[in-house]
């Protein structure tokens, strides 16, 4: 197990004009459970492959426990990695598949047997231990891939690259819980790549949100929800995502659709593009108080109703608890303590609570 440091790390694929990863400086602590969250193509897998050594970064260094491993091979780094799609050794049995990484490292036979039995039990595959791997379903094959990542106890870190993509939904919950348990038990440094916010938020202590090749925020699930540091984080996390509304700033007040919203400090940046961020959860609907909302759609999502509408040509969503009456011609007001102010997509301030 190790802490992972990325120093001025950047990567550009040889044939591509743009950087797949922009220069970043990261320090992830030993034994942490991290999730790399972001949309497809944001550089998550590239970053993961650089950490595991499958890819050499074009710039910068990778350090494990302050030791430079940039030039070391995957094997020398002693990393376990689980891929998006199942990779099994077809001709081997399930147990042999799990034993393979251990045998390659010359671990004693009784030790191998013990660990394989452990992992088989963790993944609920005891009955299939002596079956050929190729005869399994996609779910079970992916379990084997997971198992090969978990069977080694001495690894520096375990990396997961969207490991539950091919898994059945009900099994997903079960395996995610299992991974969480394994983390608590062994305290491995785990990095989990996903584009699914639920997966990231339930698995990780710290979520690293990536967008267009850059890390835009690292934080606990609550921080990501309350104070998104980038408009993308606000939109990406939450369902529906944060409302991002164009506004103007006048001293220590933001002006949206003629309404002045007090800020926690004066902002002096005349050339920036300002936006307000407010979560649908923090918008209040009433019959008369606030700005009039033109409702365009209502979506019942079970415990809540999503009210979609427009104010002065700007799209907006609000969340209303199921059973609460929605006025005929509603007006909206913002809970100003939960407003964030963004200049050129980055957070520069917040609303002042009353």
């Amino acid at each position, binding site marked *: 197990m190790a802490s992972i440091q990325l120093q001025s790390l950047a990567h550009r694929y040889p044939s591509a004009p743009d950087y797949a990863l922009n220069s970043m400086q990261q320090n992830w602590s030993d034994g942490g459970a991290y999730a790399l969250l972001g949309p497809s193509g944001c550089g998550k897998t590239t970053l993961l*492959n650089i950490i*595991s050594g*499958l890819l050499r970064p074009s710039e910068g260094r990778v350090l494990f426990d302050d030791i430079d491993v940039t030039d070391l*091979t*995957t*094997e020398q780094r002693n*990393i*376990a*990695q689980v*891929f998006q*799609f199942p*990779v099994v*050794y*077809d*001709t*081997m049995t399930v147990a042999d598949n799990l034993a*393979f*990484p251990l045998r*390659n*490292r010359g671990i004693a036979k009784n030790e191998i047997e013990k660990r394989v039995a452990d992992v088989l039990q963790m993944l609920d595959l005891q009955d299939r231990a002596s*079956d*050929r791997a*190729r*005869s*399994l*379903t*996609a779910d*079970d*094959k992916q379990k084997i*891939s997971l198992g*090969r*990542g978990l069977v080694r106890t001495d690894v520096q870190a375990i990396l997961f690259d969207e490991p539950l993509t091919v898994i059945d939904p009900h099994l997903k919950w079960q395996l995610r819980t299992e991974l969480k348990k394994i983390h608590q038990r062994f305290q491995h440094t785990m990095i989990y790549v996903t584009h699914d916010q639920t997966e990231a938020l339930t698995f990780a202590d710290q979520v690293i949100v990536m967008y267009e090749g850059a890390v835009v925020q690292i934080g606990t699930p609550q921080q990501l929800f309350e104070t998104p540091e980038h408009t993308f984080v606000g939109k990406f996390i939450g369902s529906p995502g944060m409302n991002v509304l164009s506004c103007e700033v006048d001293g220590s007040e933001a002006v949206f659709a003629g309404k002045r919203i007090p800020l926690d400090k004066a902002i002096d940046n005349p050339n920036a593009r300002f936006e307000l961020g407010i979560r649908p959860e923090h918008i209040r609907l009433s019959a008369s108080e606030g700005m009039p909302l033109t409702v365009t759609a209502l979506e019942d999502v079970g415990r809540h109703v999503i009210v979609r509408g427009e104010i002065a040509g700007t799209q907006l969503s609000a969340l209303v608890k199921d059973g609460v009456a929605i006025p005929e011609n509603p007006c909206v007001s913002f809970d100003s303590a939960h407003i964030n102010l963004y200049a050129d997509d980055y957070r520069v301030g917040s609303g002042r609570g009353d």
Partner: protein
Amino acid sequence: MSIQKVQNNKAWFMVMPVLILVAISAIIPLMTVVNYSVQDTFGNNEFFWVGTEWFEEILSSERFHNALLRTLLFSGLILAIEIPLGILIALAMPKRGWAVSVCLVLMALPLLIPWNVVGTIWQVFGRVDIGLLGHGLASLGIDYNYTQDNLDAWLTLILMDVWHWTSLVVLLCYSGLVSIPEVYYQAAWIDGASRWAVFRFIQLPKIKRVLLIAVLLRFMDSFMIYTEPFVVTGGGPGNITTFLSIDLVQMAVGQFDLGPAAAMSLIYFLIILLVCWIFYTVMTSYDNDEQSNGGGPQ
């Protein structure tokens, strides 16, 4: 799991065209051979029923036994050399870049040359008086003469076949190798697998199917080889390179023994069918085991 299948015999009409084609192209011509194999003729279209006499004669003749053994030995050697060599070359070929095209063209070249031309090339190439190979070896002081020495004749034929046909194995294996997703190799690096383990547990299982085709094709072709040895050695020296096909032509065309030749053709055909069936059954039995266990999607 049992699914009720709908029985509809009209489907047979759909396969009728194929059946008719196969009948005209294969079954009816084969029947004329069957016709000859059970009768004797003295010309003038007069035939006498002899039953299984020709078959018994062929099966008990030493000449047939020897030719069969020579042919089996030849095929065995060809497979033992070309299959491993083909896999090795395929593994060594580049996977991307301009070199891929160069390698593929170089590999395909021998396959494009007609059989009798290949024979002529090697017939000349190996000649001690004017051939590059023969003369070169002679000038190195090596006593090489494929027209007189049994071993030299065999070596020349095997070398020629390896030169002509290893490419086929290479191309088939290469196509299998490039279709293996990169992630398998990445997983193997993560698991700390050795180069041998990567071959044994990833590459070999993944190219097994194309390898089966390669083995079958090379067996059938080498077992039926005629043109090249006929051009190079003509079955000699003596009859040391007289394979079944050469022997058959001598019997049918040289001696005009149509009855025994027809019987021999059928036996020859059945042997090929039998060996191919054995190969196929052995090499796919493992797959079938797996599928009957209710294998999931790949």
